[in-house]
């Protein structure tokens, strides 16, 4: 398929293709981070994860409207505000959900999975009632449009770079919080040994609620970012769910680094496969490979060998 192209054309294609893989990586990672925090630290599978993402997307949509009406002068800045609004909205709803439902189900992970599925149905219908069944278009500020021209033939989309930077920033913050902050220490303590952590004066209930809220907040940030590349509709969250879960499971539940590595490997293989075969088959191949590897390494790619 590379016949009749000059070497420089090929180089630029490979650069752009590599970047496409990186964007996909950012997308996967951003989707998975929130889930990985919740699943890894609390053992809870949040089936409403996709709906939290869409919450972020709708918040972005609303923010853009508010700015259009109230502050047209600084409209370009709305996107940054929207990310914050999304994070707060997601975290607030997550906090509420943990309080109302999740905390009653901690010892029954499969039941949490099912109950959050119920939550996702309700959220979908709420979105439909409020925003209508149709997709809403979220207008991007001008500065996120267009592409960086690295050379005559190499162009990198600005919003792709932005997603990548955002993902890098969020991941760094989370890793920092997890491994350098007091909260992270508490979370890790609770994960390791809940009674002991309790004895040491750590309020496990509060830590759980914080963790869940954080995970949901990150999901909503992802949703806000995805308004740049995807659709915003009541059921759009469902599109991400399988990919997200696989990334987390593939990475190994208790390891954020695992999630990063897994997002990287899945995205790179999917993006290169997509280059050589049709989108549908590339997807099937990627999923099959992931499931196949999980059959061989069910604990995920990057779990430390531990004494049970």
């Amino acid at each position, binding site marked *: 398929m590379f016949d009749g192209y000059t070497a420089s054309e090929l180089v630029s294609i490979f650069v752009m293709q590599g970047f496409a893989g990186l964007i996909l990586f950012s997308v996967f990672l951003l989707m998975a981070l929130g889930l990985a925090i919740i699943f890894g630290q609390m053992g809870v599978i949040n089936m409403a994860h996709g709906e939290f993402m869409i919450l972020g997307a709708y918040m972005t949509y609303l923010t853009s409207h508010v700015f259009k009406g109230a502050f047209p002068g600084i409209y370009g800045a709305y996107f940054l505000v929207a990310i914050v609004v999304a994070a707060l909205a997601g975290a607030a709803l997550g906090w509420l959900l943990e309080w109302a439902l999740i905390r009653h189900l901690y010892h029954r992970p499969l039941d949490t999975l099912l109950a959050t599925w119920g939550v996702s149905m309700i959220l979908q219908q709420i979105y439909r009632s409020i925003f209508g069944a149709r997709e809403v278009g979220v207008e991007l500020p001008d500065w996120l449009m267009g592409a960086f021209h690295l050379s005559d033939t190499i162009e990198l989309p600005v919003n792709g770079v932005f997603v990548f930077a955002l993902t890098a920033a969020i991941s760094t913050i989370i890793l920092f919080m997890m491994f350098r902050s007091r909260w992270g220490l508490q979370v890790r303590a609770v994960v390791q040994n809940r009674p002991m952590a309790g004895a040491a004066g750590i309020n496990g209930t509060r830590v759980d609620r914080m963790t869940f809220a954080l995970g949901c907040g990150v999901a909503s940030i992802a949703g806000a970012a995805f308004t740049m590349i995807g659709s915003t509709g009541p059921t759009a969250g469902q599109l991400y769910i399988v990919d997200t879960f696989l990334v987390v499971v593939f990475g190994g539940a208790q390891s954020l680094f695992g999630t990063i590595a897994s997002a990287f490997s899945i995205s790179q293989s999917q993006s290169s496969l997509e280059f050589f075969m049709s989108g549908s088959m590339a997807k099937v191949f990627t999923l099959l490979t992931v499931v196949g590897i999980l059959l061989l390494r069910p604990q995920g790619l990057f779990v*430390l*060998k*531990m*004494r*049970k």
Partner: protein
Amino acid sequence: MSNNDFVLSVEDLTVSFDGFRAVDGLSFYVDTNELRVVIGPNGAGKTTVLDLICGKTKATEGSIKFKGQELTRMSEHEIVRAGVGRKFQTPSIYEDLTVFENLEVSLPRGRSVLGALAFRRDAEVVERIESVAEDIFLADLLDERAAVLSHGQKQWLEIGMLLIQSPELLMLDEPVAGMSLSEREKTAELLNRITPGRSVIVIEHDMKFVKHIAHKVTVLHQGKILSEGSLDKVQNDPRVIEVYLGH
């Protein structure tokens, strides 16, 4: 000394978790009719040794021979079928089943899928279960759900679930934890009663209890044997005193 003279010979057993050697070049031997007690401070690797023998953890190096069979290469259920029974630290019984059913599930008949489908509760089964229940002081509670048993009774039930399989090697991880004094005495009596004809390994902290039952004591420290012999001998071993007191 030949391995095959012992029921269980553990030689050069090593397991490491991420470089940490929880069990380090361990060798020991257990005879028939012997009740061995393993003691040692927390983190000495006691439970890990039992895990290794029953196949729950795979050894990094070394060999575990049981009646001449190499256990390190067998899967858990094969090890059990070879005659090794293991009680866990916290009683693991089926709380939703009755005592009778707990024992029935543990009966070595109908262990395959088809066998379990075809299994029938005949007079022989009932008789066997009732006799074991008698042994473990639960004969009157056969129809109770296991969840309602006291902690000590649960421990007994788990021991009974092993006994019903007539294992040749019985491994008990802290069998009297959470038991009252009288229960401890009954348990000691039970252990002494069942040891003949088989080998028993017990992990225990309660030295009074150990005194009642132990034939020979092995002291573990940092994955290695610190001392081995009669209880008196190890209690007077300066290295043992150092480890326990120096803590």
